[in-house]
């Protein structure tokens, strides 16, 4: 038990339960909004989402019970700093992919992830990552005809 006290509810698990209820509600709301032809009233596109929503709600109830009983396995304390580096890398790659091209964008992702695992300096990792990604780009975009966005660096050579 993460709380150490059996009578105190496991708050993060209660958050999970809330998320499950929210997801179920979202599905019900979206499914009601749908315009469905009357022919499909009995067996149509609506029933399955309702079943899934009902299942999620039931599991939400189960999760609340588990949170109150503290029956989730113990969790170790984790650091969020390293995660932030990696998430930042993914976000930056996503945003500059079109303009900077595959190699540079992925080089940044590479460098920031390595930084998340404690590797410094970032500029050196960036150089290594960009060269690595450029080789991947040649292999996949040229060799295997995958459509990977090209940027200034790629256009310099091809």
């Amino acid at each position: 038990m993460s709380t150490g006290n059996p009578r105190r509810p496991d708050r993060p698990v209660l958050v999970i339960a809330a998320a499950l209820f929210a997801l179920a509600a979202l599905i019900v709301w979206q499914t009601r909004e749908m315009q469905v032809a009357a022919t499909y009233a009995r067996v149509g596109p609506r029933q399955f989402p309702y079943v899934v929503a009902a299942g999620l709600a039931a599991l939400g109830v189960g999760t609340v019970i588990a949170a109150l009983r503290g029956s989730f396995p113990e969790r170790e304390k984790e650091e969020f700093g390293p995660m932030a580096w990696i998430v930042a890398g993914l976000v930056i790659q996503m945003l500059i992919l079109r303009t900077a091209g595959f190699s540079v964008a992925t080089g940044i992702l590479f460098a920031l992830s390595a930084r998340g695992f404690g590797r410094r300096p970032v500029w050196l990792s960036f150089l290594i990552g960009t060269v690595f990604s450029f080789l991947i780009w040649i292999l996949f975009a040229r060799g295997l005809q995958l459509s990977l966005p090209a940027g200034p660096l790629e256009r310099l050579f091809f």
Partner: protein
Amino acid sequence: MDTFVLLAQGLAGAMEPMNLLYALIGVTIGTAVGVLPGIGPALTVALLLPVTYRLDPGGSLIMFAGIYYGGMYGGSTTSILLNTPGESASIITALEGNKMARAGRGGPALATAAIGSFVAGLLATLALAFVAPWVVRFALSLGPADYFALMVLAFVTVSAALGDSALRGLTALFIGLALATVGIDLQTGQARMTFGIPDLLDGIEVTTLAVALFAVGETLKMAASPSAGAEKIEAVKGSVWMSREDWKRSWKPWLRGTLIGFPIGSMPAGGADVASFLSYSAERSFARHPEEFGNGAIEGVAGPEAANNASAAGTLVPLLTLGLPTTATAAIILAAFQQFGLQPGPLLFANNAELVWSLIASLLVANLMLIVLNLPMIGLWVRLLTIPRHWLYAGILSFATLGTIGANPSVFELGLLLAFGLLGYGLRRFDYPIAPVVVGLILGPLAEQQLRRALAIAQGDPVILVSSPVALVLYGIAIVAVLVPLILRLRGRGKVLAQLASDED
């Protein structure tokens, strides 16, 4: 006799130079990626799926078969030389194999794992060739209601039967099912759960989800947990060849492992980890020197490793004949078929017989290549294990985004990758299993199709679902599969089940 003819034709197809080349590329990169610590077969096939995007269906599936078998092989190397197995099915191999490596017998441990995998792969792939036509004949007699029951059974066994909590397993499954409702409804053309976003009309890509959950989620988890320290790699000392004594002690476990692994893999009842676990306990009870178990008994490597590979081939039986993926790896292979508009199932054997049989034959070819490739090149694979963690995970992330960009170079798709990656981290943090999410996403729409077809035939009367004997038997098995673990857990035997939990393959 039919099977022989078809298999021979398939072999002829698989032996074409281009196909041999595809198989060789497949097993090489499959082994190379599978060897990397922390990467199991499911992640290996998900990461490498984009490599096959631009090939023709035949070549692509042959390469994919090589990747699948190669990934399984690579995982056993990792678990023998490193105490953290790359795949859950290899945990047992790590138990004895790592002890052998520490005692300086890493070479024979790797050899018995490789040869055992070869023997098991060969026998199990032949078994697959002979069993499949029978299952296909049976499958053709099934109605939509029976199919739905079969999928319910698969849902239950994947999510609730194994692992240490039915609640968390089912929650993971329903998250997958919820994601499966996104996109255009196949029967009516109705857009569901798309929130007016055109990118969502095609639904959520299985590969995006799988790569995000396995690769991004795992990387975040590794970065966040302070306790995940570096593991010591055991050097391979001495000869990789097995002594006469090693052979004598290995060949029976190989055969027993195959015998245990194949049926377990072919039932919709869990993956390779169950098989290797059962094989390990069988070997311990058969062993002439049971006291060696726990200190590096070669039988404890030979048996489970064979069982592991035999069940990998067994998994292909329900996948190819019924279109039913029972592991996350199988779910991704199903996605590989779907990208070519092929739907595995009994009709695949009728409409694309040539393709199916050359796929089965190429599994035999891949198996042979692996043993040739693995024993002499072991030194090279070992060097892959020494890649430092920061480069390894940075590389994994680059590759993970490469697959997504290659399939659909849009900001939206990368956003999904990130979102599901965070979901994967959360699932790991709270000990939810990952495989049910992937299986739910891919099997959800298929189950819905069968359910609606069955109900449409009966004009909406739900009694049709329980009115065939086959369906009733399947529901019966499903109920047993839920109740037995529940009772075991209540009686304090949950620990054993937790060990059997399939996290990844």
